[in-house]
Every structure is written in C-alpha cells, then in structure tokens.
C-alpha cells in the first residue's frame, strides 16, 4: 500500500484495448477488495462454526470460566494499547484536579507510536526519492512521460499508414466509410464549437460559402492540421493522422449549402469552388 502512495500519479495514458491504466487499476483494486471481503466472510463463518463445536463439548464449569475471561480481540486490543487494567487505575491517577477533571497517566498506545514513527519514515523516504535521489518524477516530468506515452501509442497505430498526398495536393475522399469516420469525428469533437450540423456556435458557420481562412480542400485541411493562432481552433496534427484530417475536411465540405436552422451569419470571404 505504501509503495502505491509513494509514487506520484500514474500516467493516464491508455494501453491495450483503450482501457486506461487507472481504469485497470480500479478494476483490479475492486476485484481484490471483493475477494478479500469474500475470504473474510468465509473465515468468520468457519470460526463461528468451530466455536459452536467447541462449545458443544465443554462442561458447564468450563463455559462459566470462559465467560469471565476477556475474548481474543479484547486482549489483543488491550495489548496494542498497553492498557492498565481498570482496577489499577488509581495507581496512575495524577494528583491534579481541574474543576473535577482528573487525569490518568496511561502510556502512549504502542500502535499509535508505531504509526507516528512510520509516517516520519515515510516523509523522509518521500523527500529523498523525489528531491535528493530524484528517482521518481516530479510533475513536469510526469507530464512529459504521459504525453510521450500517448504519442508513442498514436505512432504505433499509424506505422503502416499510406499517405499519398500532402496539404497542397489533397482532394476530398468519396469513400463512404471514410466520410462516416469524418462525420463521427466532426460530431464528437468539432461540434463543441461549430455545432453538430456545422451551423456554428463559438466557432464560425461552416455550411455557407464564407470562409475566414479559405474554402478550398487544401485550405480547410491546413486549418484543421495547423489550427489558427490565438483562437480556439487548435492544431489537430498531434491527434489526427493525415488520412483522418482528410476524412474530416471532406465530410465538412459535404455540409456546404445545407443551410441548417439557427446558423450563424456569414463571416469572412466568399469562396466559390473553381469547377
């Protein structure tokens, strides 16, 4: 447990099957807890059973003697706390009296002392690990690792991607599957600012012929790829591969002239396709 606490936040990058590390951790943790609870329940049950058998075989005197004795947990509790028996309380009563309040001078509970020492050791080890030996990452490095892991994952997925165009020569795709991919992306990500129908919210209307940064396939592709500085239109290059940028741009151009209800007024320059 303390090993877990010693590390900084684990990265939230996803691994296999899109399940993030944290989700996996929670599932594993949940399973572990479930199993331990089950084991505990069974153990308690078996213990009760044993006790019942023992009780059956005891004589009346034995039973009476047993009843006077403190149970196992009571004894353990007394030991861990280093309890003075109640009858001997007078021996450790201090002679002060504050408005009728007396004080005992019991020992510090040993488990409590142990806990205190343990936390002090934890503190020293923590500071050594993070700031002297620097074996655990501080937040900036943690962030870089997290981003690198996400980047590596993306790269591995795109290793065998064929890109036979660049941002100048790109043309719209007509493949229905690719357009559907573009649509899905548009509706989950772009829609936040441009509305699901492209009519525009915080970002401009994309269904009319007026464009702030040009309306050709190449222009649209470049805006998605590079973003527009000092606006909310970020560069998607780090998150979308060239084929997917083309899919989104292609889908977006199919919205031209759809004239959805509640669309924002025209903004930018008129662009007429050449043919």
């Amino acid at each position: 447990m303390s090993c877990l606490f010693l590390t900084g936040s684990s990265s939230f990058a996803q691994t296999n099957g899109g399940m993030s590390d944290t989700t996996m951790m929670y599932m594993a943790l949940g399973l572990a807890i479930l199993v331990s609870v089950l084991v505990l329940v069974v153990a308690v049950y078996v213990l009760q059973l044993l006790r019942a058998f023992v009780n059956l075989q005891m004589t009346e005197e034995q039973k009476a003697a047993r009843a006077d004795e403190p149970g196992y947990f009571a004894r353990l509790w007394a030991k861990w706390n280093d309890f003075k028996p109640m009858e001997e309380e007078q021996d450790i009563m201090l002679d002060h009296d504050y408005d009728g309040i007396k004080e005992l001078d019991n020992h510090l509970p040993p488990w409590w002392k142990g806990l205190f020492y343990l936390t002090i050791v934890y503190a020293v080890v923590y500071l050594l690990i993070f700031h002297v030996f620097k074996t655990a990452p501080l937040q900036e490095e943690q962030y870089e690792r997290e981003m690198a892991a996400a980047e590596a994952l993306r790269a591995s997925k795109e290793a065998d991607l064929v890109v036979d165009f660049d941002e100048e020569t790109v043309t719209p795709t007509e493949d229905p599957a690719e357009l559907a991919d573009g649509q899905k992306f548009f509706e989950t990500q772009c829609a936040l600012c441009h509305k699901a129908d492209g009519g525009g919210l915080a970002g401009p209307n994309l269904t009319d012929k007026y464009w702030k940064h040009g309306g050709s396939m190449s222009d649209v592709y470049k805006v998605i790829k590079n973003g527009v500085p000092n606006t909310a239109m970020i560069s998607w290059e780090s998150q979308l591969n060239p084929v997917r940028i083309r899919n989104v741009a292609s889908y977006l151009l199919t919205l031209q002239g759809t004239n959805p209800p509640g669309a924002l007024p025209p903004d930018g320059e008129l662009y007429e396709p050449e043919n």
Partner: protein
Amino acid sequence: MELEHFKYDNKIVKYFAIATVVFGLVGMLVGLIIATQLFLPQLNLGIPYTTFGRIRPLHTNAVIFAFVGNAMFAGVYYSMQRLLKARMFSDMLSWIHFWGWQLIIVAAAITLPLGLTTSKEYAELEWPIDIAITLIWVVFGINMIGTILKRRERHMYVAIWFYIATFVTVAVLHVVNSFEIPVTAFKSYSWYAGVQDALVQWWYGHNAVAFFLTTPFLGLMYYYLPKAANRPVYSYKLSIIHFWSLIFIYIWAGPHHLLYTSLPNWAQSLGTVFSIMLIAPSWGGMLNGLLTLRGAWDRVREDPVLKFMVVAVTAYGMATLEGPLLSIKNVNAIAHFTDWIIAHVHVGGLGWNGFMTFGMLYWLIPKMWGTKLYSTKMANVHFWIGTLGIIVYALPLYTAGVVQSLMWKNFNAEGFLEYPNFLETVTQIVPMYMMRALGGLLYLSGAIIMVVNLVKTAKQGSFMAEEAAEAPALEKKKVVGGHWHSALERKPVIFTVLTLVAILIGGVIEMVPTFLIKSNIPTIESVKPYTPLELHGRDIYIREGCNNCHTQMVRPFRSETVRYKGEYSKAGEFVYDHPFLWGSKRTGPDLHRVGGAYNNVWHYNHMLDPTSTSPGSIMPPYPWLYENQIDPGLTAGKIKALRTVGVPYEEGYEDVANQDLKAQATEIVTDLKSFDVEIPETAEIVALIAYLQRLGTDIKAEPTANK
C-alpha cells in the same frame, strides 16, 4: 491560604450560546439554499445578492466564524473560568468581544451579498472588517491571557493549552493573510500576487481549519467530554505529545491544497509529507477522547451528550485520516477540484464541529439553567436525524467527486477525451447534488429540533447569571520541580511564546524561499499587466465570485491540456494577479485558457443566459452585468494601488489609462455590433469579456516559454 470568594460569569456564555444557535441555523439554511441552487439555479430569484458566487462565501463565513466561532467562545468562556478558578479578566472586554464579533458577522452578512469580497477563501471580508476582526481578536486574547494570569489554579490544564494555541495562531494567520492595499472603502488588492498569494492563502486556509475548527474544539473536548462522562482523561502523556506535534506539524501542511499547481515542487512535497505525519498527532486527540470513555461506554448508550461527542470525535478521526490521504499526489490528482473535497470538509464540519457543539449545548444549557434537559427523546431524534443527514450528505458527494473526476480524465481508444464537453460531466452528477441537499435538509431539521428542546429546557429552569465559587488564591511562592512540562504549565507567558515559535517555523520555511528565491517563479517575458478595462473586468469576476465555481489552473495532466487546449499553467503567468484566482473547485470548467477560445458574442450570450449556448448548464444568468456600468473614475485608483504592490504600470499611466480603456471597449462593442448586439461601452459585461479574452493568452505570444 485563605479561601477567596468570587463568581463565574454565566451571562456571557449564555449570549454566545444564543448567538451560536441563531447563526448556526442561518448558516446552515444558506448552505441548503446554495446546495439547492446547484440543481435549481433559478433559486437565486434572478437577483445578484442571492447568487451562488456571492452567497457561497456567506455560507462558509457564517458556519465557520458565526456558528463555530460563537460556539467556541461560549465553550471557552464557560470552561476557562472554571479550569482557572477565576472570573474572566474583564467583563467589559467580554462584552466588547461579544458585540464586536456579532457586528463583524452582521457586516459580513451585508457585504458578501453585495459582492464586496477579496475572493480569498474564508478571508473574503474586505479590509475595514479585517481590521475589526484583528481588534476584536486582540480583545479576546487580552481577556484570555488576563484570566490565565490571575488564575487560582497553579497549572494550566490541556484545554487551556489548546485555547492559547488557537489565539496565537489565528492572530498570526489573519494578519499575514490580510495584507492588502485599499483601493476604496470596501475594495482592496492582496499584497501578494500569483503563486505567493496562493501559498499564503492556503497556509491561512488550511490552518483556519486547524486553529479555528480543530484546536479550540479539542480544547472543548478535553473539558466537556470528561465532564459529561465523569471519567478521568485517559493519558496526560498523550495530551502533551499530541498537542505539541499537532500544532508544530499542522502549519506546514497548507501546500497540499496546491498539489499539481504552479507552486514549486519542493513546497508541494513538504505539504504532502507533513500532512502524512499529521495523522498520528490528530489521532492522538481522538484516542484521548474515546479512551476517556473507557469504562463508561454503557452510559454512551443513554446519554445524548456523550452520543453526540462520540460521533464528533469519530468524525474528527475520519476526517483527519482522509485529509492526509487526499494529500498524497495520486489520490489528490483524482479528488482535487471535485465534490470529494466538499464531502470531506462536511464530515469535519457537520460531524466534528457540529456534533461537538450540539453535545456541548445539551450539557451546558441544563447546567446553567439549573435543570434537566427538557426531552432526552427529542435529543435522541436529533442525534439520529443528524447522523443520517451527514451520511446522506457525504456519500452522494463522494460518488459525484470520483465519477466526475474519472469522466474528466477518460480518454477513448482513439486517444480523445471521451467527454470533451465539460457539461456532460456536470449533468451526470446533478442527481447526487439533489441527494446532498436532502442530507443538508435532514441535518438542519435536527438542529431545529434541538433549538426547541433547548428553549423548553431554559423555560423550565431558572438562569444563574452569576455562579458563586471559592478557591484559595495562588501563593506567591516559587514552585520548583516536577516534570519539565508540568513546570511549563505553570508559566503561561513562556508557554505562549513556545507555542508561537512552534507555529512560526513551518510557515517561515515555506514562505521565505518562495518570496525571495527567483527560480521558484520563473519569469515569462511576454506576460504583461492587465489593461484598465481588463482590471475592471477582473474586479467584476471577483465581485460575482466566479472563482467559487471556476478554477484558473490547468494542471500538468494530458487530460487537462487537451481539454483546455493549451499549455498547463506556469508560475510566471500569475505575477500580476493580485489576488490569485486559481479557485479550489470546478463546478464549471477551468478558465485559465479561455482567452480567445470563444468569440465575444458567445460570452455575451452565455452570461445573459448560459443555457442558450450550453443547454443544461447549471450556471445562473447574470442580466445585471448588462445594465450596470463600470465607473471609469475608479481606474486611476486601481492602477495606483497595483503599482504600490509591484505591478509595473508606468508613472503617470493612471492619468491616461481611461483612453486605453475606451479604445478596448470600443473594439469589443464594434465586434459585438457585427452580430447585431447593441451594448454601451461602459456596460460591465464588456469589461468582463475583455478580462476573459485576456486570460491565459500572454504565454501564447512566446512559443517557447521559459521553463
């Protein structure tokens, strides 16, 4: 030695007790209202004075300083006189303290809804009230130390140690955190900026919990619990060890409120490790309370006073274990900025402070009125309704916190945020907000039952304003020997000085380097002071309490830099932020990178009716920002005040600042006009838009910001 005859002052205790009950109900009611506003924003009735951002501070101030504060004073004035066998040092000071404190509360109740606030949590009250608090606190201190000095009991009991620590530390915290430069009669800017302001604020905020909500109540526990149980305190040794370790370690733990922020890593780590080391000292108090009941557990079953106290002490133990766990970075990464924290503080607030207060009142009122409690049955009903209230309050919020946090962080298989729209993560937890409000309602109902019970109790008895007592005066001889700590208990002045030293060390070690060593806050060349219009806008942001629901701190997590579309927040970006506005809770999304993210008309529409741009939003509308006008006459004063605290506005800029203000306003108004929106240039919304559009953009001018 001859017996001296004197009288205990019960009247002052009675007044503080009445104030406790009255302000307790008010504070809880305001809490219930804001809890309801989270799923029913219309409950603000469309007016500024009852809007969440303004009355959330009213709730926190009311329950902390009015409810718990008055309870503390009632408990201290009653127990201190008896523990020291002396009447309070000065009746006049007692009454100045009482009426002064109530006036401060009334001032808070008027100014906070008016939007007069510093924005710093639990220190929202503006500078004239800050001065009043200081004066009244000193009056309390003189009265307390005076009583200790003329005591008839040679040694100071452990409760008195805690009272001393409370007085000394709260004084230091309040004065240091309230350094501010006045601009007008009810407006000031924090002396500190950005990271430094955040560090000071959370050193204060954390230790307000420690020394206003914890140490005085431990003191009360050490008096009322053994009294009610009629048992000796379990361990004197434990008292000593946990008292000194608690006050020494607590003060270091403030930075755990700032994990993963722009606070330097070393300070964050100190916050973490000292929080962990705080577990045992805190539990020392719980153990000494619970083990005092050894041999009296049968009575706990019957006596409502003990029942309340047992749950209070247990809640204290739970909250003080949870706190350190929340200070561990990977737990904090999940819990911070979510409702988990709200649940955590309410286990402490409702459980520890609330139940301790209730237990104390159930014991105190019959005692002072010389009668029995009117109805034990009603007290039992209160106990169960209150306990149920705490559970129904806390559990949904724990769930809400974890659910929302995981939604914020969840990336899908394609590497995108599964819930890119922040609002989705809010609507998900709205049902839990409803349950929480129900929990609050239960708790408040219990408190109302208590009031009836206490009033009936008082009616059947007769109040004893002056209680006769007798004790021999302290001999003027030198007492030597005994355990070293026992000797210290005879020397209140040295004891107080040692306490002061113990609580200063942690703060000094964390603050001095953060203020003096430049590398802690690397400068970013492109970060410039706010323009005059943006300053006005920022002050509106503060007035409306936007920081109660919106953070300005993008943490270094992929899930945040992707969501908020920009770099994580850097220390150097906040150097002109007097005060800092990082916030502590994300009921709405972070705003540090909101500049440029939306166009002006989006903000215009959003503030007028948030649901028009964000269907389902629980943010209230702000129509008054479109009617109220900013006062350009204040610009010069703002500029001058900020220059005094170190913002590099050129000498004489205040004379021409309004030209810049007008130019920027014209630009925004013109842009809005292109969307068919007509608004005067001086409308408050224009200034607010200017501020929001500036947020977090300076760094973008410099592609490779200095690390």
